[in-house]
């Protein structure tokens, strides 16, 4: 498989890549010394708090801040009036986009509140208790409006409108029609009607999935200092310091150079820490008081008011010919945008049939406003919902055809040259290899026995993204290299990026000192998201190392007084082409002062050859038919990583994705009451799985090199969350014979399905 193609170098004997060195940030994180946003303390620092809407949908009639302002210790109170006005302008966030007018109205409500917990005002006080007391003293009068909580309700013609000037963009045209449907798009491949007409077997089902949250451990936080010279510094927890800088500068209406964003260590993001919430509030409060202002969300605020990912309604239909080939597929995908426009059906539509070679496909996607927080990315956003629909139908097809679900997937697999319905033609991909690995796995070969037990299979796809990354590195006189990059480190990327630099220079990973820098200290780097960081910032580090290598070759030539063309660099050693002279990287580094001074490398990249990530999951479960509870017995995740730079991190991503996917499958949901109020805004009742709910998740890393990366790297972070919901649903069917079409498949829902199948309410 190690053939050089396009950008892929075809290296087979890596020295650093593929190993598992001790991570550079490990000790600080283990001993608790690593600095997170909530650790920030400064002289004179004020504490901010936010007034939030108690209603899901209401018009703000008045805001009276006078009592709060009169409270001793309160230094400033702000509302949307304190934020500069914004025109409609779309800002790309790296993963998702935002209309600035909406972003402003999201950080502080402008005339209307659109979800329970929507920020209405903010205060700064000398301590957090005073700030919270001040919040209670702000009187807001509302005209309460009817909330709209599902896409089906929101799409009805007479549905209450969230944004009264919102019209539907359909197939690229503004229809002028006032609606909660912001966008309707379509992907078409072949002739789907003809395909279904020719099909021997057609299955169509409808699916509902709940709104779910990423559940990162660290709440959003921001500390801002607006200095007297109008330089603004923001310390925060983000997946992308540069997107925070861009959004904050736009909302504050100042040039980007006036804002410096210092990314602190980050306690998880999963797509949820890209949009800004607190940063402009802390900045304005700081400007009004002349003091640094720190704001940290509570867990309740995180759940109520930061972007969860979209719930959805999906109608999916697939047609199979006599040979067992999928010849037609249709999907109607309506996804929640939340209170402001967003687009998560779009990536869902790119993934829904992606593991298969299907000649005739039609996909209609709808992005729909509902009275929930503006939805945000969550690990392969949109794809889990999509795969829940398509992979459940595939399972039903396999059952009806009486074929092995993995053989069926192999028989219908997408491969190099397959065109996806949304346009792209695949380069070399690893879907077949994943399916084959699943087929030959010990797990699949092991018979599952026992009452009410079942096995489920599902595939998943995520397209991955490239985007901008920058890296700079300086050679130290002791032979180490200090690396500066702009990707906030969520999954160990400092190390996986440093390893790609070390590989070029023939030094150890431990000899690289990686550092994540602020926005004044490194070139523009897009978010840690889209499974791009090890791929793209790793590529920047690789380029940066090549830059250093070229400079050091010249220095060796200078040292030896020969032509640079006569210097060879291999495995950490420079030598003259006649082999008469050699010098190690370390020794040369120690001599730089004498032969021209310091050496720095730099690189910026914007690569597009992202490859694409495929995964297959096998899950064994047992259903307690008296309670409806599903126990996960065994899970295997098989995923194409292209090349696993740091295998433990790849395994960690696979296990983390599966854990989150199983949570989504079984218990996680935003529980709204009839008034649209979020009833479970705590981690007690928003039930993510704990370690006691999951077995050890077995991982199989498949390596089909990505032709679009020097080391064959594919993004790995997102695809493992795609198959779990469908795999668990298929396992439940195998165990007890009920097809679950709604997420989550909670005990109450499984019980209901069992009662519907078996009659009555069961026996005690």
């Amino acid at each position, binding site marked *: 498989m190690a053939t050089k193609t396009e950008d892929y170098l075809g290296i087979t004997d890596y020295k650093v890549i593929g190993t598992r060195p001790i991570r550079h940030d490990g000790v600080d994180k283990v001993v608790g010394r690593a600095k997170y946003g909530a650790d920030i303390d400064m002289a004179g620092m004020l504490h901010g708090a936010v007034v939030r809407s108690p209603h899901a949908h209401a018009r703000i009639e008045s805001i009276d801040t006078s009592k709060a302002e009169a409270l001793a210790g309160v230094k400033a109170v702000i509302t949307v009036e304190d934020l500069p006005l914004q025109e409609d302008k779309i800002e790309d966030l790296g993963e998702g986009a935002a209309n600035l007018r909406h972003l402003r109205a999201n950080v502080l409500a402008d005339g209307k509140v659109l979800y329970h917990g929507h920020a209405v005002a903010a205060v700064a006080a000398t301590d957090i*208790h005073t700030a*919270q*007391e001040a919040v*209670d003293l702000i009187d807001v009068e509302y005209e309460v409006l009817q909330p709209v909580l599902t896409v089906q309700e929101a799409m009805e013609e007479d549905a209450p409108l969230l944004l009264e000037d919102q019209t539907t963009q359909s197939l690229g045209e503004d229809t002028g029609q006032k609606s909660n449907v912001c966008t309707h798009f379509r992907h078409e491949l072949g002739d789907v009607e003809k395909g279904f007409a020719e099909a021997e077997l057609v299955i169509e089902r409808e699916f509902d999935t709940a709104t779910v949250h990423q559940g990162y451990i660290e709440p959003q936080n921001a500390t801002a200092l607006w200095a007297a010279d109008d330089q603004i510094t923001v310390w925060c927890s983000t997946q992308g310091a540069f997107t925070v800088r861009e959004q904050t500068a736009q909302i504050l209406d100042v040039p980007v150079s006036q804002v410096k964003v210092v990314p602190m260590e980050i306690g998880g993001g999963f797509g949820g820490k890209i949009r800004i919430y607190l940063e402009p509030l802390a900045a304005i409060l700081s400007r009004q008081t002349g003091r640094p202002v720190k704001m940290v969300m509570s867990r309740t605020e995180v759940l109520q008011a930061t972007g969860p990912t979209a719930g959805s309604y999906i109608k999916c239909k697939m047609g199979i010919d006599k040979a067992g080939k999928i010849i037609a597929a249709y999907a109607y995908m309506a996804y929640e945008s939340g209170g402001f426009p967003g687009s998560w059906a779009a990536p869902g539509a790119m993934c829904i049939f992606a593991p298969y070679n299907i000649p005739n496909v039609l996909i209609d996607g709808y992005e729909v406003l509902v009275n929930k927080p503006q939805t945000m990315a969550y690990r392969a956003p949109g794809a889990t919902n999509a795969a829940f629909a398509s992979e459940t139908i595939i399972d039903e097809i396999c059952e009806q055809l009486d074929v092995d679900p993995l053989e069926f997937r192999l028989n219908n697999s997408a491969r190099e040259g397959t065109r996806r319905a949304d346009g792209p033609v695949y380069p070399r991909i690893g879907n077949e290899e994943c399916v084959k690995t699943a087929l030959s796995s010990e797990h699949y070969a092991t018979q599952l026995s026992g009452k009410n037990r079942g096995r489920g299979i599902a595939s998943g796809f995520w397209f991955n993204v490239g985007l901008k990354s920058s890296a700079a590195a300086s050679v130290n006189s002791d032979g180490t290299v200090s690396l500066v990059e702009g990707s906030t480190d969520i999954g160990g990327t400092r190390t996986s990026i440093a390893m790609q630099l070390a590989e070029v220079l023939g030094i150890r990973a431990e000899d690289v000192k990686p550092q994540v820098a602020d926005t004044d200290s490194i070139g523009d780097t897009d978010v840690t998201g889209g499974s791009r960081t090890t791929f793209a910032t790793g590529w920047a580090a690789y380029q940066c190392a090549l830059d250093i290598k070229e400079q050091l070759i010249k220095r060796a030539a200078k040292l030896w007084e020969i032509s640079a063309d006569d210097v060879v660099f291999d495995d950490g050693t420079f030598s003259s082409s006649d082999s008469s002279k050699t010098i190690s990287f370390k020794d040369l580094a120690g001599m730089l002062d004498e032969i021209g001074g310091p050496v720095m490398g730099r690189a910026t990249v914007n690569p597009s050859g992202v490859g694409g990530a495929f995964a297959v999951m096998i899950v064994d479960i047992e259903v307690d038919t*008296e*309670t*409806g*509870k599903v126990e996960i017995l065994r899970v295997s995740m098989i995923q194409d990583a292209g090349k696993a730079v740091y295998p433990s991190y790849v395994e960690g991503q696979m296990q983390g994705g599966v854990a989150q996917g199983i949570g989504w499958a*079984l*218990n996680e949901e935003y*529980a709204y009451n009839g008034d649209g109020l979020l*009833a*479970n805004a705590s981690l*007690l*009742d928003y*039930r993510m*799985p*704990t370690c*006691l*709910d999951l077995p050890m998740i077995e991982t199989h890393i498949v390596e089909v090199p990505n032709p679009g990366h020097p080391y064959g790297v594919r993004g790995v972070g997102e695809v493992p969350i795609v198959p779990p919901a469908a795999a668990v649903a298929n396992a439940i069917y195998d165990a007890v014979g009920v097809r679950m079409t709604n997420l989550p498949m*909670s*005990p*109450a829902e499984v*019980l209901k399905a069992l009662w519907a199948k078996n009659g009555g*309410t*069961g*026996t*005690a």
Partner: protein
Amino acid sequence: MNAFDYAAPQSVDEAISLLSAGNGNIGMLAGGTDLIAQLKEGRKIDLMIDLKQIPEATALSFDEDSGLSIGAATPCSKIYSYDVVQSRYPALVDCTSLIGSIQIQNRGTVGGNFCNASPAADTPPAVIVLGGTCRIAGPNGTREVAAEDFFTGPGQSVLQSGEFLVSIQVPTPAANSGAFFLRFIPRNEMDIAVANAAASVVLDSDKTTIQEARVAIGAVAPTPLLIADAGAALVGKAVDDEDAIEAACAASRAAARPISDMRGTIEQRIHLSGVLTRRAIQGAIQRAKES
């Protein structure tokens, strides 16, 4: 969180004095796992009385004649680590070892679980089926209330102004007896019961017939419920009498009057009342057989 006064009385009498002198807006602190969370969520108090310096409130002792005494401020982990509890009161291990995390179990108390009076509390059903009583101190002295009579509604108990719960007394288990507690939660830990149940049985000397039985269920009514009809259905019946066990389950289902909320639906909870009653009875019989 608002400012409040804090006092750590050294005796029951001192605590009673503090309670009498206060304005009534008082928080009693045992482990604090409910109280401190409530304060953070906006509950306002003027005085916090910490019970942990009062010997009677932190004692954990057993006497063959008087049974087990659990001070109201004794943390769960201390209870389930106590060898007498492990050997004689396994149902108390069942309930105290599944509340929250280990950190919570190191702070949280049975007394606090009672006084917080959540309908879904996990310790009351076990204490009820074991015949436990609540020892309450007040300005007029000490009184004892059966565990099943302690609760009057969600968050409400028989505690009057000026009174506090000192300890919970649990009688010595009879020979050939067994008790069992379980709950249903969607996850495997760290959750609030959708429904819970406990049962205790006393068997005859050859361990084939049920002589006494008590069943209690929780999270399916405003308070934990002692299901007298469930116990009565079992008395005099063989340990393998499926009809009798089903009658007990039916009694639990009939007594349950749950609500629907984000933790469970009415029909699910009624159904689970029966399922858990059966499992609790079977567990209790098994333990009695092994006793």
